[in-house]
């Protein structure tokens, strides 16, 4: 049997541990770069939902530095484009802080920074493709189709327009007519039922009967009986008169209402004309607005892109040092990290300062940033980014300043830019002209309070501008606009932004629109006038018939007024005939008897 080895310690174990530790150390030294590179590419891509490529990466644990070459971050919404591309990033990190899981970089050098560059191969998608159309693309498309070729002066025939358009006048007239017809029927029924000719004939007959009876009166009881009949007859006639007067009052109200409707529909053809003129004619009174609308589409695309960057950066700049641990957030197998207040609080991530070189418009600009951290409140200094460039082939001067201040409860961000004499590359203005040359002075400033309240303005002053007509003009209007632009050598564009990053208004003003409108107005006023007169006549012709029918319906209501007047006068005549005096006046003793009976009439 093997002798028992019951010694408490084995010295060889220390050697085995040392060898194991050494092997692990060598493994790390040999493969650390690859491990970090893979971690950035795989885990980094999953976190930001966009492909990250690292060309090369080398780490030096002794000098505590890292050098990353050709870093590419793809645009998740446009896989053949890189959102950011960096030639080289070199930085030193604080090894002591790294032990506390803090990434603190004192100095960083970023070279060859480029934005929105085409990728050699499309990136792998990390998030489902968005089903919503890109707002920028939409506005770009809109701008190129709606304003690509300005509407010429080949106005549509007014008759064709009316065939394809529904006139409000006709719709309202139809309804009014049917309402008036209903009213007319109502009155006809009322008059027929309550003021029938038969009832009038009956009253006349009763008067005749009473006259005949009065001739044969022999005793006081007969006289009393006839006076009662006279009284009943008078009551009936009076009721008829009351009904007529009541009808007259109601009819007046209905006629007033009908007249009101009739006068309202008379204004509708003008309303229809205004609508169709706006749609089919050219409103040159406020300028063509072509340039403003053409500029606003692509500009909105660029602003939306900038908001995209802003929204991506913002969450990383929010202080989370005060967050309370929540037990339900535990991820299976991973647990939850509890944060404790530190006697010397310090952000988990900080780049104190970095020197940057960026390529913009194919020109190098130098700059830098300070204070990029995940916890600005703890760090106590806002993030500053500056770029400057001067005197090169493309511009005389370039300045960009960005401040993201999250050190207080309310975020206050500022973006300022100034570019002097920026050489303009040919800019197509729809299909009718091209701004082929020129220089732009750009000044802009945007303030964002609390990441929501956006206020900004910018001015672009273009000088030394040369416009060229693009190919053959599609129509007369294009030709005129093209030739007018040839005479323009300087103009300005002013813009004001207000709202929130998600919903903002961009108003653009440019003197170019005024110049164009003035010229176009002069040339085309006559044609526009003729078109508008023809349109007005056509609308009048289409609506005249129905309008007169509607007015006729009002007139037919007036007829009832006449009928009621006649009825009233007839009834009053009958009432005067149906008096005791008229019917019994020639009977002896009737007057004394009447006095005795104290009849009320």
């Amino acid at each position, binding site marked *: 049997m093997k002798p028992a080895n*019951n010694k408490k310690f084995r010295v060889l174990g220390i050697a085995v541990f040392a060898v194991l530790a050494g092997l692990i150390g060598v493994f790390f030294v040999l493969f650390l770069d690859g491990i970090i590179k893979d971690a950035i590419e795989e885990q980094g891509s999953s976190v930001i939902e966009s492909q990250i490529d690292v060309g090369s990466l080398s780490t030096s644990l002794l000098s505590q530095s890292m050098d990353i070459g050709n870093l590419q971050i793809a645009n998740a919404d446009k896989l053949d484009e890189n959102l950011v591309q960096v030639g080289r990033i070199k930085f030193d990190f604080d090894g002591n802080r790294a032990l506390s899981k803090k990434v603190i970089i004192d100095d960083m050098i970023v070279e060859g920074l480029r934005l929105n560059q085409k990728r050699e191969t499309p990136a792998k998608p990390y998030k489902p493709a968005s089903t919503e159309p890109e707002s920028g693309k939409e506005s770009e498309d809109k701008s190129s189709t709606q304003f690509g070729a300005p509407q010429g002066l080949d106005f549509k025939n007014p008759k064709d327009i009316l065939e394809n358009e529904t006139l409000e006048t006709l719709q309202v007239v139809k309804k009014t007519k049917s309402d008036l017809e209903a009213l007319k029927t109502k009155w006809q029924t009322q008059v027929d039922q309550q003021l029938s000719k038969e009832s009038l004939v009956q009253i006349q007959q009763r008067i005749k009967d009473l006259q005949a009876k009065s001739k044969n009166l022999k005793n006081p009881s007969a006289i009393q009986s006839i006076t009662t009949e006279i009284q009943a007859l008078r009551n009936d006639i009076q009721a008829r008169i009351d009904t007529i007067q009541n009808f007259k009052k109601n009819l007046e109200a209905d006629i007033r209402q009908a007249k009101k409707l009739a006068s309202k529909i008379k204004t509708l053809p003008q309303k229809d004309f205004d609508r169709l003129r706006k749609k089919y004619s050219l409103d040159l009174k406020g300028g063509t607005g072509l340039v403003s609308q053409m500029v606003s589409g692509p500009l909105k695309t660029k602003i939306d892109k900038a908001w995209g960057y802003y929204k991506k950066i913002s969450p990383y700049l929010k202080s989370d040092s005060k967050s309370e641990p929540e037990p339900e957030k535990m991820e299976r197998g991973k647990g939850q*990290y*509890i944060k404790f207040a530190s006697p010397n609080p310090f952000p988990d991530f900080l780049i104190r300062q970095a020197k940057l070189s960026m390529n913009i418009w194919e020109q190098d600009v130098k700059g830098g940033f300070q204070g990029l951290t995940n916890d600005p409140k703890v760090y106590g200094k806002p993030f500053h980014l500056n770029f400057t460039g001067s005197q090169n082939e493309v511009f005389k001067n370039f300045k960009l300043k960005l401040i993201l201040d999250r050190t207080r409860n309310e975020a206050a961000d500022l973006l300022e830019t100034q570019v002097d004499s920026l050489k303009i590359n040919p800019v197509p203005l729809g299909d009718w002209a091209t701004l082929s040359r020129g220089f732009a002075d750009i000044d802009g400033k945007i303030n964002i309070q609390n990441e929501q309240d956006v206020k900004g303005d910018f001015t672009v002053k273009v000088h030394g501008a040369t416009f060229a007509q693009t190919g053959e003009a599609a129509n007369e209007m294009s030709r005129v606009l093209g030739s007018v632009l040839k005479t323009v050598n300087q103009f300005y564009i002013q813009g004001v932004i207000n709202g929130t990053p998600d919903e903002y208004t961009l108003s653009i003003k440019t003197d170019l629109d005024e110049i164009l409108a003035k010229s176009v107005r002069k040339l085309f006023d006559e044609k526009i006038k003729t078109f508008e007169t023809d349109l007005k006549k056509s609308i009048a012709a289409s609506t005249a018939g129905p309008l007169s029918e509607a007015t006729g319906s009002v007139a037919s209501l007036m007829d009832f007024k006449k009928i009621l007047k006649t009825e009233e006068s007839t009834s009053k005549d009958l009432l005067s005939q149906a008096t005791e005096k008229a019917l019994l006046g020639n009977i002896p003793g009737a007057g004394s008897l009447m006095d005795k009976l104290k009849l009320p009439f």
Partner: protein
Amino acid sequence: MLRLIIKVLKALNSNEAPWQISLGIIFGSILGLTPFLSLHNLVIVFLALVINLNISMLIVSCGVFSLIAYALDPLFHQLGFAVLTSPGLEGFWTQFFSCPISLLANLNNTIVMGSLISTLAAAIPLFFLFNILVVKYRDVYNAFIGKFPMLKFLKVLDLYGKHS
């Protein structure tokens, strides 16, 4: 599975002292129940190599406890969370985690803290329990072998084959 059982039986029937086997099981349980890639496990591996414990038992124990560790995660998380967020210990933890090594060891993670506390708390009673069980097992085993001369003969042959 069979190999695993053979390894356990071999360790139990070896001439090693019960404490060597028990400590192997205890160290294996710490390695298996706590997240493997943690700084404290480096210390455990170092101790396991320096202390003359049964390495086979440590490996088997580590494997077995790793299998049940995932199921115990919610319990470890709850315990770790309760300990780390206990108001009475706030001052202690603040001081403790101001030392970078504590953070590097991931001790502010609820599962690391919960599992480490559980395994360390269970280590001493379990050590003595396993000691007793090993001694009991060996008594029963030897008594069983003693009853059958054929088995005794095979055991001697087996040992002879190994050491000849």
